[in-house]
Structures are given as structure tokens and as C-alpha cells.
């Protein structure tokens, strides 16, 4: 079976088989999170540092649960108040971690390429928890897992990613993951928030949210950040909601029951209305549950290096 290599930087460089391996590995980890004692000893004795240069509660907590449920020892480093905010470079931070013999680093950083930068300089496994606008691979994976749970398979599925594609690492990871597994992908948003040449990534551009709703099996609705309005990409959040918001009225005109995903945190009333987010077709909470399982799978696979069918599964007694 294909190994994942030392680091998980993004989905662009993974093969479809590798992505499927991660999703398949996540299945038994879902069960672990349902147990009374949510812990298995698989990563016992491993030290993992969560290096978060950007504030993030949900992703960090999700990783922390994943690490602790695998019995690893975890340390959180947040940027405020750390040596990082005192101007220590990323290179020096990396070398210090390596000198402490850390096994794995989960990094979230504001610069695209930061995870790869770190991975090239330390021997520890590096997992990208979001680098600038580049990729957020575990989010992409958990979105894939959630869609697979819902639809059975990804191939042939029509997924529309809606919102600020230009600035979104979640969008990029989703585009790579979905296209590699054979889905049809469209992006939908105001032209000022679509990156140039995006069609060359294998996606269709749908100009209006109504088109996306009419076409897709599932919508992945991205969070619109306030800074975009302040930087002048769109005139106002209110206008965004009126023109591009996924509202119950718009969904009511959909030809089928659309599954709704959102990476969170949601701006209720901007990109998504509350009755949609809390409605029957929303899989937003399953996404969160799957997030822990997917992260456990990623940590488990990277800690090993290669995969083999277990001796027990091969029928050999031990």
C-alpha cells in the first residue's frame, strides 16, 4: 500500500489511493470516539507539538483530542506570548523543537508554504493544519469522509464550493481531494473572490449561487471573512448575503435534497442562514466528529511510515 511519506503538507501531492487509505483508516477511529474510554495506546510515548501561529480553537482542539485519544503526549504552542511573537524565526522555532526530540508537529501558520518549509528542515513528522491560503488537508479529508458517509462514494458526485475561493485553503484542499477521487467540482462566488486560472485546476465556475444550488449534490459553504469586506473585495456582508447567501428560500428551489457542509466557524446570516445550518440536510456536526477520526488516522499513518496488512489480518497467529 502506498506510504504517506514523512509529512502531510497538502492533498495536491497525494494520490487518490493515498487519500482513500486515510479515509479507510479513519473508519475504525470513529468507533474509538464512541467508546466510554476514548483511548487506544497506538501512539503511546510519542510527543506531539501543536504549533499554532494563527489563533484557532476548533482545529486545535480537534487535533488535541485526536492526539490524546491515541495516547500521545501533547504540547500546545500558541503564538501570542511565545518566543514566536518575540520575533523568533520559524527556522529557529523548528530547530528548537527538533532539539527537544519532538516526534510530530502540527502547524498552522499564516504564510503559504510554511508547513513545507518546516517539513524540509526538521526530521519530525509535520502535519499542515492550515498554511496561509495554500492548503488545509485534514479539513479537505474530513469533508471527503463526510461526503462519503452520506453518499457512499465520491466518484461522480457534484460538489459546489461556495464563497471566498481566492483566500481559502479549505477550497484548495477540497478541489484537490474531490477531483482526485472523481467528483465533479464547481466553484461559485463573486468574481472578485475567485482566483485566476481556477478552471485549470479542473473545476467549473458557476456565476450565481442559484446555479450552484440547481446543479450540485452537495454545497460546501465557505466562511466569508470580515477582512474581505474591509479590503474592498465585496461592498458589504449584507449584500453578500442577499446575492450569494445560502438561504432556505434558495434551497427550497433546489431539484434535490442538497447536503450542506461548512468548515466553520459560521457567520450565520452572511454566507449561510441559521435555518440552513441547523436544518435536516446539514452535515456540519458530522464534519466535526469526522474531523477527530480523520486526524487520528493521519497521525497514526504518519507515525508509522508504511502500511501492511496486519499479521493477524493475514491469518498468521501471534
Amino acid at each position: 500500500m502506498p506510504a504517506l511519506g514523512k509529512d502531510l503538507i497538502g492533498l495536491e501531492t497525494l494520490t487518490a489511493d493515498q487519500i482513500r487509505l486515510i479515509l479507510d483508516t479513519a473508519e475504525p477511529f470513529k468507533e474509538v470516539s464512541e467508546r466510554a474510554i476514548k483511548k487506544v495506546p497506538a501512539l503511546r510515548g510519542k510527543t506531539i507539538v501543536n504549533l499554532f501561529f494563527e489563533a484557532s480553537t476548533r482545529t486545535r482542539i480537534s487535533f488535541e483530542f485526536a492526539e490524546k485519544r491515541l495516547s500521545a503526549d501533547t504540547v500546545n504552542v500558541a503564538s501570542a506570548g511565545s518566543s514566536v511573537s518575540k520575533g523568533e524565526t520559524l527556522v529557529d522555532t523548528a530547530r528548537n523543537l527538533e532539539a527537544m526530540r519532538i516526534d510530530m508537529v502540527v502547524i498552522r501558520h499564516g504564510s503559504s508554504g510554511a508547513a513545507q518549509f518546516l517539513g524540509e528542515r526538521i526530521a519530525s513528522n509535520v502535519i499542515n493544519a492550515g498554511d496561509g491560503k495554500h492548503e488545509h488537508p485534514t479539513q479537505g479529508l474530513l469533508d471527503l469522509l463526510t461526503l462519503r458517509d452520506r453518499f457512499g462514494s465520491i466518484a461522480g458526485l457534484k460538489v459546489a464550493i461556495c464563497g471566498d475561493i481566492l483566500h481559502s485553503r479549505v477550497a484548495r484542499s477540497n478541489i484537490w481531494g474531490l477531483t482526485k477521487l472523481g467528483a465533479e467540482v464547481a466553484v461559485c462566488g463573486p468574481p472578485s473572490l475567485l482566483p485566476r486560472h481556477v478552471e485549470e485546476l479542473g473545476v467549473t465556475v458557476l456565476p450565481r449561487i442559484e446555479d450552484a444550488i440547481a446543479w450540485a449534490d452537495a454545497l460546501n459553504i465557505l466562511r466569508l471573512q470580515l477582512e474581505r469586506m474591509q479590503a474592498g473585495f465585496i461592498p458589504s456582508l449584507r449584500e453578500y448575503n442577499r446575492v450569494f447567501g445560502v438561504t432556505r428560500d434558495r434551497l427550497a428551489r433546489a431539484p434535490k435534497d442538497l447536503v450542506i457542509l461548512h468548515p466553520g466557524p459560521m457567520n450565520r446570516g452572511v454566507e449561510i442562514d441559521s435555518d440552513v445550518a441547523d436544518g435536516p440536510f446539514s452535515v456540519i456536526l458530522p464534519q466535526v466528529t469526522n474531523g477527530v477520526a480523520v486526524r487520528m488516522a493521519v497521525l497514526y499513518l504518519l507515525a508509522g511510515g508504511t502500511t501492511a496488512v496486519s499479521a493477524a489480518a493475514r491469518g498468521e497467529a501471534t
Partner: protein
Amino acid sequence: MNPILIRGGRVIDPSRGADGLADVYLADGRVGAVGRGIVPGEGAIIVDASNKVVAPGLIDLHVHLREPGQEDVETVATGAMAAAAGGFTAVCAMPNTDPVTDNQAAVGFIVSQAQKAAKARVYPIGAISLGQQGEQLAEFGELVGAGAVAVSDDGKPVVSSQLMRTALEYARTFGIPVADHCEDPTLAAGGAMHEGLVSTRLGLKGVPAAAEEIMVARDIILAELTGGHVHLCHMSTRGSVELIRRAKEKGLRVTAEATPHHFSLTHARCEDYDTNAKMNPPLREPEDVEAIRRALKDGTIDVVASDHAPHHYDAKEREFDLAPNGILGLETALGVAIRDLVVPGVLTLAELVDRMSTAPARVFHLPGGTLAVGAPADVVVFDPAEKWVVRPEAFYSKSRNTPYGGETLTGRTEVTIVRGRVVFDRTRG
């Protein structure tokens, strides 16, 4: 000083349309004679140029020597040595130093540092505006009087069209070009590389070609309005080339330069977030590279200029969008130019020598660029066919930030002579 006889080389002198085997005799700091079978005088140094090219020394109109202010990454002396090793007998130093070279004392300082170094000539370029702040005109007269050969706010664009207009008009008094770094700051702000498919995939904010073209168009219009001479720095897009071509057809006083990296590398080089591929203006698309090459051929772009920009290893060893812009150029320019322009047949060797020597001298009204009798004895002898591997650790520059490390280039400087003295000889290291 001893006379020098450069014997048996292929002498290429675009200023006289000459290209053939000849000897060149230098005496008293000037070109004494060019012809076959010259008999040297007493005590002459013989330079054997068989199988080499002998040309007027290369002239680089656009380098950053970092002194004063960042002497840890380059000084006038180390830059002048790097230039000599690259075959350049003269370079023009941009004023975005710290403090900015916007007054006669600062210009004089650079002149005197260059004299002490006694390697390639260094002609200072003065700032257009005080502190390069883009508000108040610097004293062009004083700058020129102290030795400046042009003015520029390079590093930054001249944002105010009113200021650019005034600069072009005022510069006419002194017959100097105004060199502009063409970049619309609002379009380019925050951009780390060319805006295109690669920037989309890497998740980096891009700088659209339009950011350069808008300012090129503006500068051309102002050149027409004022009758001044605008020199457009480091052109990188096919749109810019088109605008310049039409301006020249109209006979406007517009000249332009392009760097070796802009006719040899594309934005694909930024993959893997290599900060040695990060500069401003950024590497562009293959169609842009093609357009730059053709523009150098037909003269739409007048000269090759390196935009040599040293940076400290630590400064470049970081996240891509936080790394500073710029790469070295002096010691690789000739090798890249021969490999990527002459070998594929885009330019003849004579045309290249023109773009790197005769034309720069003409554009900035500098001595040199010619081997006519009586001209200054600024000569380069180079091997046009030698293939060599770039080893940054062996550079004469204090810095190492080049994307060409480990690459094989074609064409290498053997001997560089300035004012009739050998300032670089590769056999002696």
C-alpha cells in the same frame, strides 16, 4: 602602467560593426590600436585571447550595492569585484541605500568607495525624491555634479504622476535619464509572485502583469508630454513590451532594460516556495519570457541589466511571502545570456555584446561600450562556449541568493580590464 596586448581573439565591437579576429592594444588607459599582428611595446602584458571573444567591457545599468546601510550583504568594493568577475567594467548603483543616496555627499561617498576598490567602475544613480519618499524632488544638479549619471527611486515606483512629470522635465536640464520602477502599488500590494496559475496553486497573493503595464503606459505618456528621457527598469511582461514598441515607433525618448532572469525563468520556478525565485517584478509566464527575448532581439528592449540584489541568507531563509525580493545577477548574467539567448539563436553574440555594453553606454551616455581607438581601455575577454556549473559559495559577492546554483551556464569571463589595468583574471583567481 604597462600596456596590454590582447592577442588573437575574436574582437566584437558593435559600436563599429566589427566582428573578426584581431589584436587589441591598450596603452595609457586607452585603446591604442585594433588590428592584426600588432607588435607590442616594451613591458607589455600579453593576454592570450585565442578562442575567446574580446569586447568592450560589459556595463550593467542597474545594480544594488547595499552600501551604505547593509554592508553585511554587499559593499561597493565587493560589488565592484563581483562585477569584474562577471565581465562588467562599469555598473550603475541604485540609490535605495540606507541612508538614501539623495544628496551630493552620498553620491560622492559612493564615488570614493569605488575609486578605492579600483575594480569595475561604479556610477551612482541618485534618487528622484528626497529619501525616495516620492514627495520632494532631490537636487539633481548637485547629484550630477558629484557624479550621478541618472536618477531613480528604484525599489519603489514614483507613484505621483505629477512628481514623475516634474522629474522628467527637470532632468532634461542635465541630460540624464529618469529610471522608473514600474509598479502600481495598489494592484501589487502584498503580492509575492506573478498572479497566475502557479500563484493560485501555491496559495500566494499574486502581482498581475497589469500592475507593471499601467505604470509603463503612464511613463510613456509623460515622456511624450515632457520630451524627457524615461528609462524603464526591469521589464517583465509582454504587455509592457508592446507598449514600448509602439512608443519607439512614435520616436519617443523611451529606453528599457530586462534582467537575465526575466528572459530565462518563469513563475514555475517558485514551486516549492523557493525564495531564490522571489523578486520584484516577479518571474512571469512563458509567453512573457518569449516576448522579452524577441524584444531584446529587435531592440524594443535596449539593454540587459541584472538588477543585482544581494540579501542575507537568513533573510531569505524564511516563509515565502515574508522573504525579501531580489536575487544576485552580476556573476551569472553573461553565462545566462549566452546560454538562453545566443545558444538557442535568439541573438547573435554581437547583438548580445551590444545589449550588454554598447547600448548601455549609449542609453546612459557613459564612456565605454566601444573599442574605437582612444576609447577608455575597458575591455572584457570571455570564453563564449565554456560550460560551467554555478557554485554560489565561490561568488565574489558577499551574498549567495541566486536561483542558478548548481546550474550549468554557457560563457565565462576570463579577463576584465578597467582603465587599462587587469582587475579580474580567472587564471589567478
